[in-house]
């Protein structure tokens, strides 16, 4: 059946039925005309009529084939052309059938309503209008062929009485069922819309889940970094310090008996201290303890003081935030600062600022250095990292740069209104109280 091919099962099945009925009617009419030709009236006009009806049937059958291929509009066009032609042709030969054929000219305009565009519908209405006038004009020629006169007297009223209600009923049925077709279309639309809404809410849920899982991954990574940081401090650094103290003991003893040995032990001591320093920097890079104790402002201040290039900064607005927000902003800032130092070029002016509004925490790192072309792929591996980190706390990253015009990295994180915690003031009050 057509349902396998046609996506819109309801309306096209109906159209198929209508077109099928049309094809059957024309076939029946052709047979009937041939019977009339043999039994009632042997006339060339009857044969011409039969040929016309058969031609119209063929056109409609072609429309039916188009419909089976899913082309409803083409089927409507076929039906319309067949109807117009047969109405005009039959009226010319048998003007007495004009009432039936007038109705037939209206059929395409009514049939087309649910299937065509507004502009096409105008064409069909115009076509039906012109065909109707044509049928009326041909009908008024009053039997130019003499065919009517040749027929037995009962035929003309018989045809009109028999076929007018049939045609009228057909047009009326189509007009009425157009509403059903439109209803189906609306229902389909509503269903599709509901599916879309469902999909949308599923997507929203997925986005939420993704954000949560990203936050979880970042939190787990942070936790791991803190653990490694602590291990480095409590394990490796402690062990190196032990060694340094034992070395100092040996050096004390050696110094008395062998000054040369004491001197070379001093060199070993220097190397050991270098290693301790490197280890501390490494641990600090993993997760700065200052972030936990002193918050964003203290940690950023500390980070800026350690940078190789001069950076001016203003982080006074930063208060205390949830640890995941503080670490996200901290790592993004240090990443951006290191990028600026590394890629900005010598002498670039670098600025860091942190702004806090009621519901947003914003940081900005900008420099007037070399800049880069953001459209070039593969520039700055740090940016995806920063985007991930900020994304995990529902924040976003904006990078503006162009070659020769510096770089600006801006991050915005939604936050709860500031916790009213100002460590410096607390310390100050305690100090003031103690010194009274």
């Amino acid at each position: 059946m057509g349902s396998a091919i046609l996506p819109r099962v309801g309306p096209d099945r109906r159209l198929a039925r209508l077109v099928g009925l049309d094809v059957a009617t024309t076939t029946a009419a052709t047979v009937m005309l041939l019977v009339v030709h043999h039994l009632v009236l042997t006339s060339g006009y009857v044969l011409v009529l039969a040929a016309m009806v058969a031609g119209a049937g063929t056109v409609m059958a072609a429309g039916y084939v188009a419909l089976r291929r899913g082309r409803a509009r083409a089927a409507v066009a076929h039906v319309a052309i067949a109807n117009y032609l047969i109405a005009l042709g039959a009226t010319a030969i048998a003007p007495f059938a004009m009432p039936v054929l007038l109705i037939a000219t209206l059929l395409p305009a009514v049939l087309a309503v649910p299937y065509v565009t507004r502009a096409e519908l105008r064409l069909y209405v115009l076509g039906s209008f012109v065909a109707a006038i044509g049928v009326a004009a041909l009908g008024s020629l009053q039997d130019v062929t003499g065919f009517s006169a040749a027929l037995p007297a009962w035929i003309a009223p018989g045809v009109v009485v028999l076929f007018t209600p049939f045609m009228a009923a057909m047009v009326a049925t189509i007009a009425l069922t157009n509403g059903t077709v439109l209803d189906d279309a609306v229902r389909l639309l509503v269903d599709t819309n509901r599916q879309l809404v469902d999909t949308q809410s599923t997507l929203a849920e997925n986005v939420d889940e993704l954000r949560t899982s990203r936050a979880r991954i970042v939190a787990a990574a942070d936790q791991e970094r803190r653990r490694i940081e602590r291990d480095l401090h409590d394990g490796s650094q402690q062990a190196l310090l032990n060694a340094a103290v034992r070395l100092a003991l040996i050096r004390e003893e050696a110094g008395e008996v062998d000054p040369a040995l004491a001197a070379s032990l001093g060199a070993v001591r220097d190397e050991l201290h270098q290693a301790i320093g490197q280890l501390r920097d490494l641990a600090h890079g993993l997760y700065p303890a200052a972030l936990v104790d002193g918050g964003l402002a203290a940690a950023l201040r500390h980070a800026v003081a350690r940078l190789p290039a001069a950076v001016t900064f203003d982080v006074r607005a930063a208060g205390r935030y949830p640890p995941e927000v503080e670490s996200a902003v901290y790592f993004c800032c240090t990443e951006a600062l290191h990028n600026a130092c590394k890629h900005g070029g010598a002498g670039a002016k670098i600025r860091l600022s942190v702004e806090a509004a009621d519901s947003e925490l914003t940081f900005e790192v900008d420099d007037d250095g070399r800049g880069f072309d953001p459209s070039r792929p593969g520039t700055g591996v740090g940016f995806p990292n920063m985007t991930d980190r900020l994304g995990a706390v529902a924040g976003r990253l904006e990078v503006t740069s162009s070659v020769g015009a510096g770089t600006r990295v801006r991050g915005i994180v939604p936050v709860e209104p500031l916790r009213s915690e100002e460590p410096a003031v607390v310390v100050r009050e305690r100090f003031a109280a103690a010194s009274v």
Partner: protein
Amino acid sequence: MLAEDNAFLREGLSRLLAGSGRVEILAACGSLDELLDAVEAKEPDVVLTDIRMPPTRTDEGVQAANLLRRTHPRVGVLALSQYLEPALALSLLSEGSSRRGYVLKDRADDVDYLVDAITAIADGGSVVGDEVIDSLVLGQLRQVDSPLSVLSPRELEILREVATGQNNGAVASTLAISEHAVQKHINSIFSKLGLVDDGETHRRVAAVLLYLSNTGPMVTGPIGP
């Protein structure tokens, strides 16, 4: 008296310090409770303590210092920190900086430095590691509209020395200028920064440190009464 939870380091440190001949180790402890009990029993001049110790391994050294400030005001505390934590340093000095010190553990094998620091604290002074001050000063200097930018290079130098806990005489000899000149510079620094100097070195250290570490606009006015 020594408090350090790592047994090897505790052992090494006490041997190193005892070997200097300038200090006597009364007790070596491994936790906050042990430390407090030992202080109660032996009344040392100075406690050299790790900042992180059992039970929580967070800030036991600072807790001990602040507790002893009330129970044993004459006991000095020199805290050793694994890494730079300005917040802990401040917390240590927040109730006054006399007989208090904060240095990095990297100094643990520098016996002369440690013994000097212990002696200074026993004498009522305060000691803050250079690294701590350098980091704070640099952090403050790079700040937009930094108040430190109004200081002359010489004044900045003196501020650094003052912050490490040196008294005027020591600052003068370090920088090879007269004590009078040092006091003049300090007056100028304090008036530029809006701080009040009551002449007490130990309070001055806390005021300067607090000033340097402050991130907010709150502490630009005078500190203390």
